[in-house]
Structures are given as structure tokens and as C-alpha cells.
């Protein structure tokens, strides 16, 4: 009764459609993970100091938070639809193995949605203390939600907790599948940190643009430092976590590692290549660091690194897509960590924020760059998993729907998401340009902004 593979001429379009849905959703997830904590930090400072500036900041950010959360809710709903719309073979065969992760995530999402409602509409209507407390479940749900979703993704990369007899899945142990796989630890830490890095740099970049245009006062400085401090602390840690991730991939997904680094043939003392392009089994025009890969991946300069030729050509991912994405992610991650070090050094040693224009120019760049790194990272791990949807067990082509019309669905979604991106840009611009509400009587947060 299993779901047999069907012919699907639009497999690539189905994958692109899934990738598009994911690329639109994941930045919103970052804001869902990290932004509530930043809003609450501002609110906490208001409660501690009684300084109205923090309250104004927290309330203005709350509007941004709720608008982005709404878009996250609907784009997340689309993703869950697509699990069945596009990949019924995957769902029908393995739903019982990993589904529990999503069931648990569903409750996290519920808690997040409920308390976002309370937090947003409770501003000035609950006691300050109760209001602050109502934000805490949002932050916790961001963490648990990441845990459960990444449990599923890490299982796809390191599948266990079931036995395959023919095409029949038996002996299903969901907890083992989800929470005892080797990838969950680093995937969770890597993504959770990415949430703070992307949100922090994007928000800080918005105020850096203002500063370069001469909009700079106490309000703007605080609005820049709250997100930037978090991101700057997280970015150097992310380099270490990324290194950990690569070493785990080297152990459990050698073919993915070979694609990341463009290793055509199995070799001892493999070199690391910066830049370049993979062709005919080797990296052309890259800068080689002798024995670098063996050292980094296995902590042994002469360790053997498995090449792409260890598996049949049909079992290899598209090397250059994976490799270029990986290099983009690592380069941007390094850039962000260096910028963070600059910021942290100035804050600690000189007890002020950096003052040079170049710092703010780079910060403006860091915002969108962090987003690019996020997407590149997901391309690395997801395209690197190809041609498997469940690593080494089920191919993506066995998972795909037999339904026709994928290009039509893809085009529909692409145009709707193009409109969504324009809408989000419009919302953020509007909220940024709304006049500052001053004084003790704040505007009700659920009423339209009275912009003139």
C-alpha cells in the first residue's frame, strides 16, 4: 500500500517552488525567533528605568513584529500545505516517522500566536508587569518551535528510528528519529543563532542608513545598539558553530562534504580551496590551502577525505550550487564576525559606539548580507542533501506528486509572493516613517497609524 514513485516531468519546478516558499518564509522565521526578545529588551529597560524612550521604541517595534509575524503565519501555512501538495510520496511513506515533530511544533506556533495577540493588544491595557510577562512565552515558543522543525530537518539528513523492508516502513520510533539524530544539536544552535544575527543586523542596518543620512539622536542610537549588540555577540559564536557543523557533515554525509569543498576524488591530506569553480573532478582557479580541508574537517592534516567519485554520479548533488552557496555563507559569516569584533572592541575598550562613517556603511551592507548568508546556508544543506529527500533512503523523485500543473502553481505562488514582498517593504517603510508619538498617552497600538 506504499506510495510508489510516479513520473513527474516538473520535478525541478516542484523543487524550485518549495525552495521559493522556504526562502520567503525563513527570514520571517528569524524575526519570529529573535525580534520578540529585542522588543522585550527595550520594554525591560523601560520597566527598569522608567525612561519613556524605551517604551516608545518597544511599541514601535511591536507594530513591525506583528506585521512580520502575520506574514510568517501565512507563509508557514503554505509550507505545510506544500508538504502534501508537492511531496505526497514523502509524507505518505514517512509521515508517521517525523510527523510528531510538526505536531509539537504546531503547539509552539499556537502559543506564539496566542501570546503575540495578548502582547500586541495588551500594550497599555495590561499592567506593565503582566504585559512584560506575556511576552516571555513568545520568546520560549520561538526556541521550541525551532527545535521541533529542525528535529525534522535533521532527521531528513540523518535518518533513523525506522526500518525499511522493501518500500514498507516498519518499526517506527519517532522520538529516536527526531531527537536522537546526530544533526539536531548543531542545526538547532546554528539556526537559532542565525535568527538573532539576521534580525539584529537587518534592524541595525535600517538605523545605520538613517545615521548616514543624518538621522541620529539618542533614540536612534539605542534602537541601533539593542539589535546590534545581540547580533555582534552571536556572529563570532556562529563561526565556531559552523565549524562544528562542517565536522559533523564530514562524518555522516561525506558526499555532501565533498560537494561543499569540491573534492572530486578520495584523497589523503586534501586541500581547502577558496573561491574557484568545480569542473572535471577538481576546483579550477581557486586558491588552495594544502591539507587545509583534512585539518579542518578531521583535525588531522593527513586524514582521508572521501571524494564525489565514491558514489555513482546519480547520487551526487549539483556540486557548484552547493559549493558556491557554502563559500558565500562562510565569507559573509566571516565578514559579519569581523564587523562584530570591531563593534564589540569599541564598545568594551572605548565605551562608546563606533563613530566612523565606514563602520555604518559596512553595517548597512551587513543587513542584506546576513539574509544572503541565511539563504545560502539553507541552499548548502538542502541542495547538498540531493538527490535524496531522506538521506540515502528516499530520492526526491520518489517523493514528488504525480499531479500535473506544477508550473501553474509555481507561477501563481511566485507572483503572489512578489506582491507579498512589495507589501512587506511598504509596511516597513510606512512604520519607519510614522511620526514619533511622544508624551505619556501613547496611541492605541491596534489603530491605523495616523500618518499625514
Amino acid at each position, binding site marked *: 500500500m506504499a*506510495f*510508489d514513485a510516479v513520473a513527474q516531468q516538473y520535478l525541478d519546478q516542484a523543487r524550485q517552488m518549495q525552495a521559493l516558499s522556504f526562502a520567503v518564509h525563513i527570514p520571517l522565521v528569524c524575526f519570529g525567533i529573535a525580534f520578540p526578545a529585542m522588543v522585550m529588551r527595550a520594554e525591560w529597560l523601560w*520597566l527598569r528605568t*522608567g525612561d519613556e524612550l524605551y517604551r516608545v521604541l518597544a511599541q514601535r517595534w511591536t*507594530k513591525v513584529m506583528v*506585521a512580520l509575524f502575520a506574514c510568517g*503565519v*501565512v507563509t508557514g*501555512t*503554505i509550507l505545510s500545505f506544500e*508538504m*502534501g*501538495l508537492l511531496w505526497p*510520496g514523502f*509524507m*505518505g*511513506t514517512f*509521515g*508517521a516517522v517525523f*510527523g*510528531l515533530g*510538526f*505536531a509539537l511544533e*504546531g*503547539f509552539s506556533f*499556537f502559543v506564539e*500566536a*496566542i501570546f503575540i495577540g*495578548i502582547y500586541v*493588544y495588551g500594550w*497599555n*491595557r495590561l499592567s*506593565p508587569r503582566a504585559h512584560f510577562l506575556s511576552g516571555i512565552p513568545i520568546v520560549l515558543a520561538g526556541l521550541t518551535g525551532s527545535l521541533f522543525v529542525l528535529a525534522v530537518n535533521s532527521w531528513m539528513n540523518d535518518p533513523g528510528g525506522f526500518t525499511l523492508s522493501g518500500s514498507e516502513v*516498519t518499526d*517506527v520510533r519517532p522520538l529516536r528519529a527526531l531527537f536522537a539524530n546526530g544533526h539536531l*544539536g*548543531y542545526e538547532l544552535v546554528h539556526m537559532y543563532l542565525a535568527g538573532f544575527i539576521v534580525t539584529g543586523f537587518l534592524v541595525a542596518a535600517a538605523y545605520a542608513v538613517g545615521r548616514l543620512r543624518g538621522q541620529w539622536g539618542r533614540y536612534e*542610537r539605542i534602537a541601533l*545598539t539593542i539589535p546590534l*549588540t545581540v547580533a555582534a*555577540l*552571536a556572529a563570532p*559564536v556562529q563561526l*565556531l558553530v559552523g*565549524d562544528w557543523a562542517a565536522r559533523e557533515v564530514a562524518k555522516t554525509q561525506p558526499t555532501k562534504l565533498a560537494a561543499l569543498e569540491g573534492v572530486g576524488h578520495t584523497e589523503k591530506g586534501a586541500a581547502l580551496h577558496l573561491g574557484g569553480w568545480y569542473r572535471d573532478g577538481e576546483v579550477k582557479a581557486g586558491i588552495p590551502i594544502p591539507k587545509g580541508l583534512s585539518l579542518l574537517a578531521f*583535525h588531522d592534516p593527513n586524514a582521508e577525505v572521501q571524494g564525489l567519485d565514491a558514489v555513482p554520479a546519480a547520487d551526487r548533488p549539483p556540486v557548484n550550487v552547493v559549493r558556491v552557496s557554502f563559500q558565500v555563507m562562510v565569507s559573509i559569516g566571516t565578514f559579519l564576525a569581523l564587523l562584530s569584533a570591531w563593534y564589540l572592541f569599541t*564598545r*568594551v575598550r572605548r565605551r562608546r559606539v563606533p563613530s566612523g562613517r565606514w563602520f555604518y556603511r559596512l553595517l548597512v551592507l551587513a543587513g542584506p548580507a546576513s539574509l544572503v548568508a541565511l539563504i545560502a546556508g539553507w541552499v548548502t544543506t538542502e541542495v547538498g542533501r540531493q538527490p535524496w529527500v531522506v538521506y540515502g533512503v528516499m530520492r526526491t523523485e520518489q517523493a514528488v*506528486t*504525480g499531479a500535473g500543473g506544477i508550473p501553474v502553481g509555481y507561477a501563481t505562488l511566485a507572483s*503572489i509572493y512578489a*506582491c507579498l514582498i512589495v507589501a*512587506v517593504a511598504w*509596511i516597513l517603510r510606512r*512604520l519607519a516613517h510614522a511620526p514619533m508619538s511622544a508624551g505619556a498617552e*501613547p496611541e492605541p497600538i*491596534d*489603530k*491605523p*497609524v495616523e500618518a499625514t
Partner: protein
Amino acid sequence: MMLGIGLEQLPLVFALQGVALYAVLAGADFGAGIWQLLAGRGERAERIREHAHHSMAPVWEANHVWLIFVLVVVWTGYPQAFASMASTLAVALTAAGVGIILRGVAYALRSASSGAAEARAIDLLTAAGSLLAPFALAAAAGGIASRRVPLGNAAGDLWTSWLNPTSLMAGLLALVSSAYLAAVYLAADARREGDEEMVEAFRTRALVTGSLAGVAAIAGAFVVRSDARWIFDRLVDTPAVLSVGVSLLAGAATLALVARRSLGAARVSAAIAVAAVVGGWALAQNPLLLPGLTVDQAAAPDNVMVLLVIAILGGGLILFPSLALLFRLLLRGSFSAEPTVARDLTETGPTGGLTSAITATRLAGGCFGVGAAFLVIGEGAWPHAIGVALLAGFIVLGLSALAGEDARE
């Protein structure tokens, strides 16, 4: 016939409760969007649209999560049934997805809009989503009920599975009953806010759409009888007929309550009317989930079902008190009350002195160095966990060291 709910049925029962809650709560939300569309122009129309918006705004996100709940329970507990439904009903679900995106984006846009013209344009988006989503989802349900969704990967027809007489009737009924629910809820909300003009406006709308829903239900019965005789026969047989009867009675009672202006009670009976339809459908289809596939056959292995039930019950322990809090704040009017100015502020000076900041900085640096060593050099789960904990310590200590956000330029 015995109802016999075993482990195989239990998650489905929870999922159906989710369907009923989604039909009531998201139905009311979509219905509010329909009333925004039908409000027309002018100052009164603007008030109607505004009332519909602000009444639904605090809860719409939570209301919509019920759909996610239903999806994840079905795909975990009944993976092959889920895969069959989603792949055959792909077009219907895509249409519903588009409707849901429109609704969500419109909500986000509303929070940044200004002026009546913008609000009107945005409410059109809400309305488009509010027509599309409930229609497509109900039509998909109609396809399942009329046995047009077979087991297998996209084994049914992409179009006739949801564009057929039963589906069209289901879609129509969903739209009318959503509008009905919304009118009852919005009238009750207006009463709470003391806005008698809106009470009357939505009371009239409730009476009209309530009657229409009754007519649609009767017409629908004839359509289903000729199009899907099997489900019709089961609907008018015990036990399903009891649930259908409850729905009809509750629907009629709601009309009477609305006519008598007992709006609080009408809220409850309207919800029962809608939920009982879901119950009747489930009872009529039991024990078949899809043609040739019983619930027992579709169910995941027992240990998965046990874990799923534990997850649902455990999640419910967190979920229901949270929902109760949200709805209590909403229904008590806490969200529409005038803002209260904060009073009980604890006045404290800047936290920590220079010395503690320096200590925190040093500690943070130490955490980073040792944590990095554990993570990079260490092998195995424990060294990595210690490394991650120390690096988390670095971030927390770093935040506290840099707490003086008023660092001077």
C-alpha cells in the same frame, strides 16, 4: 452501530475537533471579511468595515493556527490518507492557500495603513481571501465526502475532485455560514462595546444570512442526494442524523436568539450549529476515511498514535489555558478599553556599575575562549554541549556587560 473510539480513531477525533474550531473561529474571521466586502461605501460602511477589522484583529492568528493543527495531526496519524488528499486536492488547497495569504497580508497591511481609502483597498484584499479560502477548503471537504479522493499519489481528478455538485454546495454553505457566524459575533462584540448602531446593523445581517444558511442547507441536501447518494444515506441515518439534527436546531435557535437580542447565547448556539455539521459529516463517513481505506487501516503504528495522543493532550494543557486567557481578555473588553497609563513603575537607576561591567566582560571573554576550545577540539556530545553552554554564557554575559545601551558617542 457502535461508535467505538479506539487508539486508531483518537487522533482523528482531535483533528475533527480542530476542524470544527477552525470552521467556527476562522469561519467568523472570513465572514467578517465578507461583510467588509458587502459594506458598500460611505461613512456607515467605513464603520462597519472598521468594526469587522478591530473585532477580529487580536485573535485571527490564533484562530488560523487550528488549520495547522489539523494538518499536522492528520499527516502524523494518517500519513497515506493525508498524502492522498493533499495530492488529489492540490488545486483546491492552492486556492485556499492563496486566500489565506491574502488574508494575512491584508492584516499586516492594515496595521500600517492610514486613511479611509487605503483601508478600503486593503479590506478588498481581506474580502478576496475570505471568499476564496473557506470556499476552497469546504469544496475540498466535499470532495472527500463524495468519495472523489482515492488512495494514492494524485490518484483522483485535480478538478472534479473539488468542482462537483457536492463540493460547490459545501463551498456555498461555508460562505453563508461564515457570514452568519461573523454577523452574530460582530453584533455581540458591538453590544459589549455599547455601539448600538453596529448591533442593529449586524443583527439584521445575522437574521438574513441565518435564513439563507437554512435555505442553503435544505437545497444542499437535495444536491448531495443526487450527487453522492452514499453519504446522503449515511447522513440521514443514525448516528449522523442526530448531529445533523442538532445543527439544524442550533441554527434555528440562533435565529430566535438573535431576533430576541440575546447575543451572548447566540454566539454559543451559532458555534454549535457549525460544529455539529462537522460532527455529522464525520459520523456519516465513519469508518471510511477514503474509499476503500478505513480509519484503522490508515492509522500509523500504535506507538506513534500513543505519542501523538500524549503530544496533543500535553499541548492542550498549555494551549487551552492560553486560549482562555486570550479570549477572556478579548471578551471582557480589555483590548478595547481605554489605555491605562502605567503606574507601578519600579524606579531604579542604571543597572550595575563600571566594575561589574568589567567583571562581566572578562567572564564573557573567558567563556568564549573555553567554549570555543570545547566546541572545536572536543569530540562527542558532552564536550560539544559544554561548549555550546559556555558560548551561550558568553552571549548572556556580553549582553549584561554592554547593558548600558546609552554608551556615549
